[in-house]
């Protein structure tokens, strides 16, 4: 094993490391389908529960009024399942240690993990919405502009993935990590959920002032995403070292 050609890794590795972590997570997920399958099935089961819950609502009830709330409820609980898996996967196999041994700035790990989580959440969202529309919104009129839905989903997914990745990293070393993640995650998600439900409801119902309500919600989502993702970025090194 000739070591005479030794070359030190250069600086400016961050982009290469970011791509490597993200690619690795995606390749492993495509191979095992652990996160997507568990999140997808969970979302589907949630839809079934919703259908049972609304089965006695009667024909006068307009499910569009609560559609956004139901959807985001499903996304929040589904994302917790995925967030837990994304870090437990590293921890269980001791690979987090190997990752931390490499000359990588900790925020690079945060961004790669958060983007990976966001991609998986977006995939589940894209798969869930047609099922939800089929089960609950058949024959209902879509009131807003169609582009509003993906914009709201993306904004929500950024916040969920950013904050969730930080909290999943915090909880991964604790006993009862599922419980710890839920206890930390739901309260921190409160303002984001409120904004997401508001923007999505405006998109679904339409009507007077729906564009203003949508942008007002999106403004809150953008502010939440910016503040919380920056805070998570700043805290990530501390959390990993704790």
């Amino acid at each position, binding site marked *: 094993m000739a070591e005479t050609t030794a070359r*030190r890794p250069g600086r400016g590795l961050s982009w290469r490391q970011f791509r490597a972590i993200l690619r690795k997570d995606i390749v492993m997920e495509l191979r095992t389908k652990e996160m997507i399958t568990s999140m997808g099935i969970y979302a589907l089961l949630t839809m079934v529960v919703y259908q049972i819950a609304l089965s006695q609502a009667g024909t006068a009830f307009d499910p569009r009024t609560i559609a956004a709330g139901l959807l985001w409820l499903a996304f929040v609980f589904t994302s917790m399942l995925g967030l837990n898996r994304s870090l437990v996967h590293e921890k269980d196999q001791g*690979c987090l240690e190997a990752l931390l041994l*490499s000359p990588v700035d900790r925020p690079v790990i945060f961004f790669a993990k958060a983007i990976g989580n966001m991609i998986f959440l977006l995939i589940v969202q894209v798969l869930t919405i047609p099922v939800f529309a089929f089960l609950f919104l058949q024959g209902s009129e879509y009131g807003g502009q169609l582009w509003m839905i993906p914009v709201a989903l993306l904004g929500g997914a950024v916040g969920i993935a950013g904050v969730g990745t930080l909290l999943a990293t915090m909880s991964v070393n604790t006993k009862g990590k599922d419980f710890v993640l839920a206890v930390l995650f739901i309260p921190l998600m409160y303002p984001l959920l409120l904004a997401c439900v508001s923007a999505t409801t405006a998109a679904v119902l339409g009507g007077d002032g729906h564009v203003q309500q949508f942008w007002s919600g999106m403004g809150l989502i953008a502010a939440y995403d910016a503040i919380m993702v920056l805070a998570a970025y700043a805290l990530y090194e501390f959390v990993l070292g704790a």
Partner: protein
Amino acid sequence: MSEPTAPENALAVEVRGLTRTFGARKALDKVSFDLPQGAFLSIFGPNGAGKTTLVKVLTTLTAPSKGSARIFGLDVVEDAVELRERIGLISHNPLLYPDLSAEENLRFFAEMYGVDDAADRVRELLTAVELDHRRLDFVRTFSRGMLQRLSIARSLLHRPDVLFLDEPYSGLDPHAVEIFDSLMAQIRSEHTFVMISHDLAKGLELCTHALILARGKVVLSAPKAEIDEDEFTATYRATVGTGVS
């Protein structure tokens, strides 16, 4: 942050008053020692003596509570990122992704270390650890011995100056030990080694320097040439009964 270049016979590892506490418990208590470049340090001690904590601090995975540690002049806290480019770790845990192939694992870590000639380096190391024929197989299908060989390849990817070995023989069958020893012999002259071992005979056979830790404190630290093996063995056996720190 400048990267100091070590002159001949320079110290590879300098540890001064290193203390690490977990709540009220002192896992390391004012540990101090030096290790010259190219040396092989074997660290002995009973379970809970602080050996793994010491290696975790030296590999930047845990920050010390007090004191300092420098490797080739790089501080384990201040210069952690630069230092990680110069150290490698072989643990009893292989630190590899089971759902990636051997080649994919090494390619991933090569990217993480910014190895420029990654494809060639990965192939060179897979050949060296005699796993080239299994390069496309998932790591989860590997035996313990094969995992340990691949772990050696992972730790050497970036051509580290100091290799940390945390009970590397743990769980290996005699044939795997033989292969591991042969690989270690090949790279022995190219690195400085710090090894945690419970196997006194093996640790003393490999080392140039030895250190006994008990309750987080250094009980004995000396070059092998200055060690009386019977006395050393007696000291080690006495520490084994001292319990955890």
